[in-house]
């Protein structure tokens, strides 16, 4: 259509100018810390232009509990309950990696009996399933699907019950100790666990039908929040975030710690089935696939624990506990695959200076680390949020936050 009327063009110009000026008005919007879809006490300051998010400024620290300061004044064994409280949805994984680091520094990592290692991996993988179930369930709620949340919590309840049976506590276990375990598995645990695996497999299939292939869910998550692989690496993302971007990087395979080299499992990666590689749907799918793989690991652990590593009456999981946890003065960075990604602890151990009666300085062995730095996977995964949420809609920002799956206990430590 060709319009030559100048008066009309003037009017049109006035109108477009008005709209253009109105739409460039920016607004600062505060999201959180008590927002249901920020998964805890995360506060985001959004600079928005209408529905478009121009910039995201995260403010964290609402759940800071001085983990590193505590670790400098407590012994290695006493700090294990504090590691549980970092990523409180996968406490077993945290204490496993902490304990691995301390054992390596003491040089006793080869002396741990096989049965203990298998029990450790068994409970860690159960806890990983529980953590991923929460990630999937709450992600559904963020998008607007309520049923998966209830289904996930129903199935997670079985895992919580089993771990409570083993350790005496539902979430914060303090079960894995340096050199051993708190207790052996209770009698009948293996059978109950196998029952759970059989029960859970069809449930996972149902969950897939409900959410993974749900058209509304796909439309909300595919091609949203695309995280390219190079950006993910540069920002230090790890775990399902990095694997969702298409990189096969799983420390259980790369480092091959504990007994993972003896186990048979795949490392799922994002393939961009519904959209682009590295979008929210890929990250979600990686978690679903990881649950399947964790179930395989659990089954293999159970096979071993029921056959060649069967419980014996004289088996004592505390037999190898070192009397004194005094490593040599050294630095060590231990890393392992937590539920959310690469969890690392950097230890600096030094001798303690003490004055004797004559006032001379003596260097004493100590059980307390000089400095501990913890590298939480959620901390690094969250730091990529401002980079991938420039120019998205506010509703998509919710989808991106949910797909990162962070735990504020670990971000703030």
């Amino acid at each position, binding site marked *: 259509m060709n319009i030559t009327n100048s008066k009309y063009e003037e009017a049109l110009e006035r109108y477009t100018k008005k709209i253009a000026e109105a739409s460039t008005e920016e607004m600062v919007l505060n999201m959180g810390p008590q927002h249901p879809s920020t998964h805890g006490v995360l506060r985001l300051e959004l600079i928005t232009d209408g529905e478009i998010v121009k910039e995201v400024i995260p403010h964290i620290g609402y759940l800071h509990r001085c983990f590193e300061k505590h670790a400098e004044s407590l012994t290695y064994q006493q700090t294990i309950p504090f590691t549980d409280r970092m990523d409180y949805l996968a406490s077993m994984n945290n204490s496993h990696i902490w304990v691995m680091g301390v054992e*390596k520094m003491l040089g006793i990592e080869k002396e741990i009996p096989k049965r203990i290692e298998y029990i450790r991996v068994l409970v860690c993988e159960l806890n990983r399933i529980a953590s991923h179930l929460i990630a999937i369930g709450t992600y559904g709620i963020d998008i607007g699907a309520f049923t998966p949340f209830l289904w996930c919590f129903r199935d997670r309840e079985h895992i919580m019950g089993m771990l409570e049976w083993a350790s005496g506590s539902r979430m914060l276990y303090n079960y894995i100790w340096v050199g051993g375990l708190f207790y052996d598995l209770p009698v009948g645990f293996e059978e109950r666990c196998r029952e759970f695996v059989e029960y859970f497999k069809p449930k996972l299939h149902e969950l897939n039908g409900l959410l993974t292939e749900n058209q509304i869910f796909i439309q909300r998550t595919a091609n949203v929040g695309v995280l390219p692989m190079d950006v993910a690496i540069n920002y230090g993302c790890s775990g399902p975030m990095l694997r969702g971007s298409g990189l096969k990087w799983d420390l259980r395979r790369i480092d091959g710690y504990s007994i993972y080299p003896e186990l048979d499992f795949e490392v799922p990666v994002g393939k961009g089935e519904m959209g682009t590689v590295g979008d929210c749907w890929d990250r979600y799918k990686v978690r679903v696939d990881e649950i399947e793989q964790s179930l395989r690991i659990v089954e293999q652990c159970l096979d071993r624990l029921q056959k060649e590593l069967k419980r014996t009456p004289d088996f004592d999981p505390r037999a190898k506990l070192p009397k004194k946890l005094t490593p040599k003065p050294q*630095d060590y*960075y231990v890393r392992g695959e937590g539920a959310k990604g690469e969890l690392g602890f950097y230890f600096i151990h030094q001798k303690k200076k003490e004055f004797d009666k004559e006032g001379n300085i003596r260097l004493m062995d100590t059980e307390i680390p000089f400095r501990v730095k913890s590298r939480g996977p959620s901390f690094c995964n969250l730091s990529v949020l401002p980079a991938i949420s420039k120019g998205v809609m506010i509703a998509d920002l919710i989808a991106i936050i949910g797909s990162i799956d962070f735990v504020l206990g670990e971000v703030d430590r």
Partner: protein
Amino acid sequence: MSFEDIKALLINKFGEDVIVGEEPGGLQPALLIAHERIVEVCLELRDNPKTYFDFLSCLSGVDYGVDEKRFGVVYHLASIPYQTQFTLKISKENNRDLGELPSFPSITSVYHAADWHEREAFEMEGIFFEGHPDLRRLLLPDDWDGYPLRKDYTTVDKYYKGIKID
């Protein structure tokens, strides 16, 4: 590449004075780098096809004790293509005066992952990072006094905003 190879590579590229020492023993050998050249060393290690240390695992600020008067930063790098790990350390002497913070170059231009880690090291140990784009406090309140992970840190006040500290 082994520890010695990486050391030779860096000496080849930047000269002898870039390396001020090494800790070869222990579980993870570390290379001590001249603190003002850490950015170019990181960039070289990241981009050199023989090393490709493209993943910054961890960055820790360290206060080496009240008697030492020495502050440092420890970098744990990982290479995804080669599946190797490497540790770099920088440190310098500085007094413990809160008005004169020890200052190191920021490596955020090489690894974005360093951004939040450096902010944390700044508020916890009181280490300043030159060239950091946004060096605000991260975990603590904006008006916090002192640097809690310094070895001589004590809570000076009995009260924090009217709340009694035991």
